[in-house]
């Protein structure tokens, strides 16, 4: 038994008894992350206060082969921080210091428990900000962002967490501490920093993060435009891109999502429109003004029925409040819902939305759509009622939507990760060999399989054996690759 009394005492001797939680009432608070349908109560929760103590915890785990799961704010939507039975959770919320704002080099050094929004709050007095902005940015932590390679509304222009992290200090699963990345884009050999980013807590625990900060743009121009159909909105996005404009953000919502968001926030969205587009441009006054005029023209050309330009920072904030509240707001129009996250090539948006609508009708369930239209990242919200026994149907529909995205030449996940939620769908996107190599990389980091086991890659125990004949790779079926 790995977690017998002497082991517990080792943790208590390291952290102090108050920071080792085994009271089932309290460990229960850690039983799930944002994917609340999956729950496992951990044996122990460890709450270290320093990077050294995190390494100490991992060393004890390594010595006794105790599986561990690192956890930030628990806002993840794919079950990446789901505890492991007989294992420990290492909560990183107490490592919450902004260690340095280095104005001269435009970077910040952070502990993993710092929230995403706190970085920009600390940087903004210097005219700087941190670009990736997931909707959960008020609570989600930079450590979690590193694990998930989080995106957000502005990653079309500015990229994802991986494009903004210079270096990370990581406790490897054997308890050793390494630095991946460097102070510049030059590195000593392969980009292990980039391998760790988005590895969903399966390759180690991050204890220190150095991120790039950007200069706050001179101006931001934001508009909210209504369209007679989602397809018309999609065409606007295509035309903006074809004009050589890279907007800071392009977000689309359909009628159901608008109804929910407007009901919750009163942000000023129209309740009678089938689709609304939020377009934001930023940059220098000269470029922004010129491009913004062009965007307004494009909107008009595609039958825009109402165009509202944010006239003040407050109005801009309001538009974003409506958009960012959309997931939670759906709770107002449905007792239960599942947030899906898939990606399709932007040019196939209209087609995929039609298919999703058909799949929803077939399942007898409503699907609200909120998406990052600029990069083809969909967030279909499957609405259902658990009390009416619709759970299984909703889960089936949601998984089907993600797999549809792969079939269209896209991805199972744009920003929420694979976690436990989609591990069994991975063979839809990757071949057996691809997954086997990912397992080899994982073994290079974690030969004893104690670091967040059961996440990201399918296992026979999790997904059941899948014997049988050759199944063509989805990209092969889509005509994008050839079988060798």
């Amino acid at each position, binding site marked *: 038994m790995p977690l017998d009394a002497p082991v517990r005492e080792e943790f208590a001797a390291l952290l102090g008894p108050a920071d080792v939680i085994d009271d089932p009432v309290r460990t229960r608070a850690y039983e799930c992350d944002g994917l609340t349908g999956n729950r496992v109560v951990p044996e122990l929760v460890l709450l270290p206060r320093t990077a050294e103590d995190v390494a100490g915890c991992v060393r004890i785990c390594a010595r006794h082969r105790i599986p561990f799961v690192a956890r930030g704010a628990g806002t993840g939507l794919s079950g990446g921080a789901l505890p492991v039975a007989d294992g420990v959770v290492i909560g990183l919320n107490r490592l919450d210091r902004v260690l340095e704002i280095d104005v001269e*080099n*435009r970077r910040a050094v952070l502990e993993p428990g710092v929230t995403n929004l706190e970085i920009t709050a600390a940087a903004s007095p210097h*005219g700087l900000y941190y670009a990736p902005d997931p909707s959960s940015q008020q609570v989600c932590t930079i450590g979690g962002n590193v694990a998930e390679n989080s995106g957000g509304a502005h*990653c079309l222009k500015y*990229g994802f967490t991986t*494009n903004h992290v210079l270096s990370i200090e990581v406790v*490897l699963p054997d308890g*050793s*501490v390494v*630095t991946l990345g*460097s*102070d*510049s*884009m*030059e*590195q*000593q*050999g*392969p*980009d*292990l920093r*980039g*391998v760790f*980013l*988005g590895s969903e807590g399966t390759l180690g625990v991050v204890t220190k993060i150095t991120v790039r900060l950007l*200069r*706050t*743009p*001179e101006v931001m121009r934001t508009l909210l435009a209504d369209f007679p159909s989602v397809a018309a909105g999609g065409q606007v996005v295509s035309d903006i891109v*074809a004009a*050589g*404009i*890279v907007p800071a953000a392009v977000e689309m919502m359909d009628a159901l999502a608008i109804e929910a968001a407007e009901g919750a926030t009163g942000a000023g969205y129209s309740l009678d429109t089938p689709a609304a587009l939020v377009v934001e441009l930023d940059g*220098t006054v*000269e*470029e922004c003004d010129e491009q913004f005029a062009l965007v307004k023209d494009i909107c008009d050309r595609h039958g825009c029925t109402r165009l509202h330009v944010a006239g003040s920072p407050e109005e801009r904030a309001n538009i974003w409040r409506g958009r960012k509240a959309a997931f939670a707001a759906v709770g107002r129009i449905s007792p239960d819902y599942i947030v899906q996250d898939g*990606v*399709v*090539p*932007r*040019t196939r948006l209209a087609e995929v939305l039609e298919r999703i609508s058909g799949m929803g009708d077939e399942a007898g369930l409503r699907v609200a759509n909120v998406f990052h239209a600029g*990069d*083809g990242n969909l967030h279909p919200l499957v609405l259902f009622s658990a009390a009416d026994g619709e759970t299984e149907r909703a889960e089936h529909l949601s998984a089907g939507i993600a797999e549809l995205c792969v079939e269209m030449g*896209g*991805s199972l996940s*744009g*920003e929420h990760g694979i976690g436990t939620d989609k591990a069994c769908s*991975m063979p839809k*996107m*990757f071949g057996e*060999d*691809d997954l086997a*190599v990912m397992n*080899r*990389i*994982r073994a*290079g980091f974690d030969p004893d399989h104690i670091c967040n086991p059961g996440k*990201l890659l399918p296992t026979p125990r999790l997904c059941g054996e899948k014997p049988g004949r050759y199944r063509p790779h989805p990209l092969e079926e889509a005509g994008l*690759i050839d079988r*060798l």
Partner: protein
Amino acid sequence: MTRAAPTTLRPTTPKEVRDAVLDTPGRLAISGAGTARHWAGRPAEVDATLDLSALTGVITHNPGDMTVSVHAGTPVRDLQAELAGHGQRLALDAGRIGRGATVGGLLATADAGPSSLVYGAMRDLVIGTTSVLADGTMVRSGGHVIKNVAGYDMAKLLHGSYGTFGPLVEVVLRLHPVPKATACVAVDGPVADAARHTAAVVSSPLEPIAVEWVSGDPGRLLIRLEGGVDTLPGRVGRLVDLLGDDAREIGDDAWSGHAALTAGQPSTDAPEGAVVRIGCAPARLASLVAELPATGVTAGLATGVATVTVPGAAVAEVHDAVAAVGGTSVLRDRPDALDAPAWGPAPSALALLKAIKTQLDPGARFAPGRFDPWM
């Protein structure tokens, strides 16, 4: 025992690359256009060379999605010409692209140019890869969409790998629009003055695409702006006003001197000096390069990345000086006879790197010598 002269294999399809790896016993060197043949550690003796320069061509270009997949041996120069017809480009301007460097070669050597300040390095532009491992496994990661977090990002592992995990055969890239207009503003002066100007520019709202100092007498700071045909002149004016001194707009060919210092040497010529690539925190770069015995320097004062040409005997000293400010360094071109360390001190993650190498290439078949003396 003497070895037979190494064979050169020149596959033209991914399948032929895999067959070559499976059918050729022993150790393999990998080459593309050969523009970085001598970079990093000197290649050790091999049984065969996999020459990927015939594995070329665009596989799929999706203009509406701004993505392209190409065979790894495709010269970026050729790719840019093809994309330009759609008003698109790969936003990478490494100097040796002009010498025919390939997509796979630029990725494997983690090369980048001045515009990495805004567009990042190859690691930020690649969204999918297919490569061949020592046991013949063809492995894909990423995909054809820009936003994608499914699975481990193999492309990053291959970035800067110098072929040590095996040959790349296909690469999927994200594209950017070709700017409507580009301008270059220059200020002459030594690197210390250039650093002061750089600080002013990066804290201004003018959004420079590249900020590079090029050595000379007294040296010159080059700043690139991109924008609209009608809007760019106004920004150039603001930039000139901001910098003062003798700042002025000059022709875009000013960058050719920069490229010449970073592009490496044609393999037939023995270079005069050794070229070392350096990276450190940007604010430390000017004083670092000022103290090196360099005969040629390009310094990205906003990125922290510099390329310096120094006497061969000074390479070890350069590694030490860079390590002392917490930076990283790697030897690029060198005189043939030079016996100098290719890398600075080993990274803290060396044991991890070795563990991954053992997982993917247990027989140490690929690119022996590149990470000498670490592994």
